[in-house]
């Protein structure tokens, strides 16, 4: 148990912007925290709040959702729809007691490799400071079924 806490973060990203941005971060040899598991989706409009719940259900300490800047969506307005949904979902999580600090949203374009690396680093640090998501992990424990992330 003496091992230092390493947060587990799941990132849902759109393939056209943020994933390309992550790619750029990689090809530019930028170093960033290895705590993030990236799930690539066609568009932020495809990122259902269910995904966020599922990530938490599997034991994530934090969730990052990211896509194209407004106006840049490959599908013209997928991210506008997503934005409304996130706003509502974020308020809902807040109201039910899941701190908004654990679910982070961002816009990262294909050109912003360094923003991606910086964001991952800062999010990892923030969640490290928050510590493990004990409240939710307690719920998972009660189900008898293991958190498998």
């Amino acid at each position, binding site marked *: 148990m003496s091992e230092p806490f390493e947060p587990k973060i799941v990132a849902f990203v759109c393939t056209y912007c943020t994933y390309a941005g992550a790619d750029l971060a990689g090809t530019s040899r930028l170093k960033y925290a290895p705590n993030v598991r990236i799930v690539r989706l066609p568009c932020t409009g495809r990122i259902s*709040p*269910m995904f966020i*719940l*599922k990530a938490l*259900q599997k034991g994530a300490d934090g969730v990052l959702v990211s896509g194209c800047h*407004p*106006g840049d969506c490959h599908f013209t*307005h997928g991210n*506008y*729809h997503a*934005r*409304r*949904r*996130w*706003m*509502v*979902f*974020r*308020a*809902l*999580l*807040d*109201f*039910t*007691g*899941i*701190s*908004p600090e654990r679910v*982070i*949203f*961002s*816009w990262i374009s294909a050109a912003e490799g360094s923003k991606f690396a910086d*964001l991952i680093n800062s999010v990892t640090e923030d969640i490290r400071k928050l510590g493990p998501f004990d*409240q939710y992990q307690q*719920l*998972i424990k*009660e*189900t008898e079924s293991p958190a498998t992330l």
Partner: protein
Amino acid sequence: MITQEKYRTTVKELLANGSIKMAIGYRPGSTSDRRRPLFIRTSEEADQLVLDSTCITNLSGYLVTEGLLSDEKRVGIFLRPEGIRSINILAAEYQLNVDQIIIFGFDFTGREVRALQGQTTGDFSALLSEIRENPPLATKEPLLERIEKMNAKERFDFWQQEFSRCIKCYACRQACPMCYCRRCIVDSNQPQWVNTSSHTLGNFEWNVVRAFHLSGRCVQCGNCDRACPVNIPLRLINQRMAKEVVDGFDHFAGLSPTQEPVLASFKKDDTETFIL
């Protein structure tokens, strides 16, 4: 009493001249403070109709019963303003055609029942706008204010406490006029998004998912809250989410049958203060 008699006569007339094939209203229940939904197809059945301050169930969910409106005939229904809003949402989501619905509007203050003027949803738009501007006092919940003041941990604990009683009977879903999906998200198992078991995690997920799906659609009729056999204050979450869409997107659900669903539309200048 006068309203009730007047409506009985109206329903009988409309049935007799074939304007409607059925009217959905209320009749006495098993105790004096209970009312049962009533399906009026004959003049005798119309005599059973009662209308008083215990008629609180929102009946609009019955309109999406499979096959009811498929014959293009018209159906009358007794609705309070919330019910009229649900009809508007159902119409906006293409679940029914408002031209097929004859509304017998009513509302009450204290024990005094009064009829609302109008028959189609359009007739009530002024009334609904009025409600939007001046929401009835009853919607102010002391408990809601208490929850707002809590910190995240306390809120989490509060809701865990409430949801721990949930038995996953889905009465909230079944009682809700907005939950018309043929296959609910908890019923689909490929993938299984939400745990079907009724442990605290499964209960939490289910209630969050339902609240999310009702965001910007709930009219606070209270059907879910009353149906819940374990008395979870479900109305609080839905009220909070309704406030969120009003504040965030200036969207008051169910104003008209052509209102765009809030989560299926957007404005380019929607707020995004929380996005990094």
